[in-house]
């Protein structure tokens, strides 16, 4: 019900939203939770296992019960904490884990079977018959499990990520956080103040204390006015710091527009904050008490009840009982009474407690059980020897406070038990650069929090080398904290710990009985704390119950590990920007658009896109285009773009010596104007990459790498130059982006090249020669190299003129009966020649395997030389590269198939090798394959069985050399 005249909601702005289709009236400033309470809706969710009806329990992100879904379709967001969701006009909220409705939920039948569903019962059954697990038991369990439901539609990529940097990150804006931020800000530090709530102030928004003569909200407002006016302060509300990482890095989730109707604004923003110092002032979380029937709607945390009453002006009923073990109980009773709510009883676990209030008071009493079905109606109370019933709508319970040390524990520091406050606190500097202040530091009175915030602020200011300018401390309430342990009340009926996962004290005791006695065993066996709230409200209580069951102290029992994130983070926030193409950069070659114009399908080649083939009208399948392009290259001339190849310049007096280290063959002896094929090994003796090395001048070489290995080779060269050969005087630089490069291949390639060069004579290059020339006045580099087996050139031109040169080359090629060719044809051409790609340089092959052992210089050291000589990398047991042709009735070859002796079974034991690349060769009118075959070079002429189970292809093949076309290379040398 709504309380008149209380709360910080904006009563001039009514807001309507729906809950399970019912229209709910609320005010601006309400959360879904406060609005539901205002409308007397008591059941807000169903529990995970037993489908127990559940009501609001907390008022913050630790809420275990009120998990709802907001929105529909692709915007549906499951498991939203109703306590954190601000209302907006038209907001669509539905409850979860119930059918057909919250109040009539068929799943509640599970509760009847609860005696058989104790902790870990599923480990002891469902084993027979074996096939039933996947077919019967598991589907049933899966359907029953889970809380919310994803819509099944692709989520929008509607969030964003950002970085921020500061001197001091203050987490939490209660009295300690505000004071710390003010202290640091006045000293001139760059401050980020992050607050999870929609409003700054923490508990000050929920309590009736005065500070410096102002109400809590007023004082918060005055501090905020100062902070927001400072240029060195960034105030971030709706921002939960979710994780602490190394060197002062924090993750934080900002709910940018989830409190508004959907629009174009980002929904959430995931921040990466780098902070020199951090002050953790995240407050403390109140904990409940495990007593029979404590999950009844209407039982809630005392602090939460004060928040509902004081901040939102709502109450769960006409009367309330307050039960606690600190002065919190009395504060709650006072606030309730002043709000006009009947205080039916105050029960203080401390036998020596006194009260000033005008209500039934039971020092040393306890609650034994609850009554009511869908909502609390009454309590069984024990006081002394007397047991009696108190009729009430609401029980406000407090078992004490747990400092929010989660973030302090994220990078390995263990919290420390303090007997005086019956709680875990963080150890000293639990995260490098982090200080803990206020309630998070185990200080539970306002004056103490203010002072501790000031202290922490000054520590941070000094640590970053600024002068302190301490603000004055305002007067505030200062009550010593006195607590008596109050964890559980044993009795008939179930007492819940983890409300979401339906873990009870019995489950914890059963775990101990079965020897799951360490906290981690207990947690994993019972699932205590593995629910969406991660046990925020229940873990410490569960540990206390475990300690009691094992006869140990809580301190000796210890805790489980806190891990990020502090609150659950949507994948769409942490992965923002990646949907579709945003996952990795797209790289487009200079002639990309021109290839697309010709209708070429563009396919991914690493980050690049390359044309697959260039279809002509009338060609229906890729093979027709590919075959034509291959013939075109073999018969006239073809042009293809090879700009994606890595291009690296190596310069300097020691460039040649350096290249001798990284290549297996000798490059220092290469003459100016010449190109040499080169092979690079990894230090482990396997092939890293191949490519060409051209010597443009005495002290300038240009290397090409494969497209795939370009970045790896650059990093490798940097490593060798800086780390292994720092004494050599040379410089390396990638020029991949500077040069567009085109291969011109075919018998008429020379005619084409000569026709476009300003000085046609420059086109008369010997095989493996290179020169600088010009086209229409633009300087180009011309290389006489071939990856097709035909007479071929590669022409490099500055990228800005790449598209123009491509168009020029095509125009001239067409006049010669040629045209463009794509990756498919390029692949066929190289397979016909037995040239390599990474299908063969697969990371496990050696120069020896590839038949390139002759390229390994015996006269010098090079990377990979020593380990390539290991006995296991040489000899007859190695799989060596061979060529294959089908010889039986079946004419098709496939890549990835295995080879077996003719007549041998296709088993692992009989494997002789496997195919790496295959192609239909229009030139030779047959399929061709490349393969690795055990001792293959000695087996040319042998017939084998090729089996591809995956594609259901089997063929008889004949082994030959890798090169199937023009083996002496006459065409290439031309």
């Amino acid at each position, binding site marked *: 019900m709504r309380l008149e005249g209380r709360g910080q909601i904006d009563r001039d702005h009514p807001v309507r939203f729906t809950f399970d289709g019912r229209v709910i009236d609320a005010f601006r400033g309400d959360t879904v939770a406060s609005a539901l309470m205002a409308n007397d809706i008591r059941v807000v969710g169903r529990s995970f296992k037993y489908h127990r009806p559940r009501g609001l329990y907390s008022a913050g992100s630790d809420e275990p019960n009120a998990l709802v879904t907001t929105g529909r379709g692709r915007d549906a967001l499951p498991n939203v904490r109703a306590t954190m969701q601000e209302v907006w006009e038209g907001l669509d909220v539905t409850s979860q884990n119930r059918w057909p409705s919250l109040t009539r939920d068929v799943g509640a039948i599970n509760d009847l079977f609860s005696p058989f569903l104790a902790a870990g019962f599923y480990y002891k059954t469902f084993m027979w018959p074996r096939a039933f697990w996947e077919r019967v038991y598991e589907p049933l369990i899966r359907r029953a499990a889970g809380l919310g439901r994803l819509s099944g539609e692709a989520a929008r990529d509607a969030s964003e990520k950002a*970085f921020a940097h500061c001197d001091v990150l203050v987490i939490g804006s209660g009295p300690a956080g505000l004071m710390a931020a003010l202290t640091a800000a006045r000293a001139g530090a760059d401050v980020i103040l992050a607050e999870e709530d929609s409003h700054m102030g923490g508990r000050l928004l929920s309590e009736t204390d005065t500070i410096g003569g102002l109400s809590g909200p007023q004082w918060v407002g005055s501090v905020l006015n100062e902070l927001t006016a400072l240029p060195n302060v960034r105030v971030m509300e709706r921002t939960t710091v979710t994780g602490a990482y190394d060197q002062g890095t924090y993750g934080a989730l900002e709910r940018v527009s989830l409190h508004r109707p959907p629009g174009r604004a980002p929904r959430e923003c995931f921040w990466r904050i780098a902070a020199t110092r951090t002050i953790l002032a995240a407050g403390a979380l109140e904990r409940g008490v495990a007593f029979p029937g404590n999950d009844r709607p209407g039982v809630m945390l005392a602090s939460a009840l004060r928040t509902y009453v004081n901040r939102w002006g709502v109450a769960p009923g006409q009367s309330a009982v307050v039960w606690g073990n600190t002065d919190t109980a009395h504060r709650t009773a006072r606030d309730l009474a002043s709000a006009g709510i009947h205080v039916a009883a105050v029960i203080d676990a401390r036998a020596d407690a006194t009260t000033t209030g005008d209500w039934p008071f039971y020092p040393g009493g306890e609650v034994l059980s609850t009554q009511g079905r869908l909502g609390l109606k009454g309590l069984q109370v024990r006081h002394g020897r007397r047991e009696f019933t108190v009729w009430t709508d609401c029980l406000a319970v407090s078992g004490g406070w747990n400092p929010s040390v989660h973030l302090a524990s994220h990078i390995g520091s263990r919290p420390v038990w303090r007997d005086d406050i019956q709680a875990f606190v963080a150890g000293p500097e639990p995260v490098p650069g982090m200080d803990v202040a206020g309630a998070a530091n185990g200080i539970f009175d306002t004056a103490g929090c203010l002072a501790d915030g000031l202290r922490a602020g000054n520590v941070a200011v000094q640590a970053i080398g600024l002068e302190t300018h301490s603000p004055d401390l305002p007067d505030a309430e200062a009550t010593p904290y006195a607590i008596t342990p109050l964890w559980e009340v044993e009795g008939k009926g179930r007492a819940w710990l983890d409300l979401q996962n339906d873990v009870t004290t019995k489950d914890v005791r059963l775990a101990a009985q079965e020897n799951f006695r360490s906290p981690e065993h207990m947690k994993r066996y019972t699932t205590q704390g593995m629910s969406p709230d991660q046990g925020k409200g229940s873990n410490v209580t569960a540990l206390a119950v475990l300690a009691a069951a094992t006869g140990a102290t809580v301190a000796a029992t210890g805790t489980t590990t806190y891990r990020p994130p502090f609150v659950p983070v949507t994948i769409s926030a942490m992965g923002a920007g990646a949907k579709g193409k945003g996952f990795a950069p797209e790289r487009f070659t200079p002639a990309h658009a021109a290839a697309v114009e010709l209708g070429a399908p563009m396919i991914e080649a690493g980050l690049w896109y390359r044309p697959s083939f260039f279809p002509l009208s009338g060609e229906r399948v890729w093979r027709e285009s590919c075959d034509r392009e291959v013939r075109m290259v073999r018969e006239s001339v073809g042009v293809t773009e090879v700009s994606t190849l890595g291009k690296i310049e190596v310069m300097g007096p020691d460039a040649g010596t350096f290249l001798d280290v990284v290549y297996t063959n000798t490059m220092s002896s290469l003459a100016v104007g010449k190109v040499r094929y080169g092979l690079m090994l990894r230090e482990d003796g396997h092939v890293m990459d191949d490519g060409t090395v051209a010597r443009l001048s005495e002290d300038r070489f240009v290397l090409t790498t494969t497209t795939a290995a370009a970045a790896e080779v650059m990093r490798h060269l940097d490593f060798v130059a800086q*780390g292994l050969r720092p004494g050599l005087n040379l410089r390396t630089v990638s020029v991949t982006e500077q040069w567009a490069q085109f291969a011109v291949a075919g018998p008429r390639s020379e005619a084409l090249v000569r026709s476009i060069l300003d000085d046609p004579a420059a086109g008369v290059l010997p095989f493996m020669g290179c020169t600088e020339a010009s086209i229409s006045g633009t300087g180009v580099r011309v290389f006489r190299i071939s990856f097709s087996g035909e007479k071929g050139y590669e022409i490099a031109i500055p990228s800005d003129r790449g598209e123009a040169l491509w168009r020029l080359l095509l125009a001239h090629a067409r006049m010669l009966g040629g045209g463009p060719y794509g990756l498919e044809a390029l692949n066929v051409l190289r397979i016909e020649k037995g040239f390599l790609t990474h299908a063969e340089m697969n990371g496990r092959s050696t120069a020896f395997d590839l038949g390139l052992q002759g390229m390994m210089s015996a006269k010098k050291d090079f990377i990979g030389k020593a380990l390539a000589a290991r006995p296991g990398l040489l000899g007859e047991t190695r799989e060596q590269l061979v060529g294959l042709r089908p010889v039986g009735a079946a004419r098709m070859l496939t890549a990835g198939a295995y080879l077996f002796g003719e007549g041998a079974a296709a088993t692992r034991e009989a494997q002789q090798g496997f195919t790496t690349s295959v192609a239909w060769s229009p030139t030779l009118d047959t399929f061709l394959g490349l393969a690795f075959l055990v001792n293959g070079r000695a087996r040319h002429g042998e017939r084998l069985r090729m089996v591809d189970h995956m594609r259901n292809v089997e063929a008889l093949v004949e082994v030959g050399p890798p090169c199937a076309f023009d083996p002496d290379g006459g065409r290439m040398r031309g």
Partner: protein
Amino acid sequence: MRLTCPHCGERDLREFAARGSAVVLSRPSAGASAEEWADYLHIRDNPAGEARDLFYHTPCGLWIEVTRSTITHAVIAARPVREAKP
């Protein structure tokens, strides 16, 4: 995690590529035994504590040797591998 590139200053981990132990800087001489070579490339002290590891600052191309704790991830020092060469 943040690391300091001696050329660029302190940067987020995402700017770096990690390579593992810095022992690979101590490449055996050409005439070393097969055992020495195998040890060099494969065997690692793998300390639980202070370690020297290699990182590559991708944007600027500098290889650095970082002295750091493998337990706490504390960074103790960073220098270019050029200067770290034993």
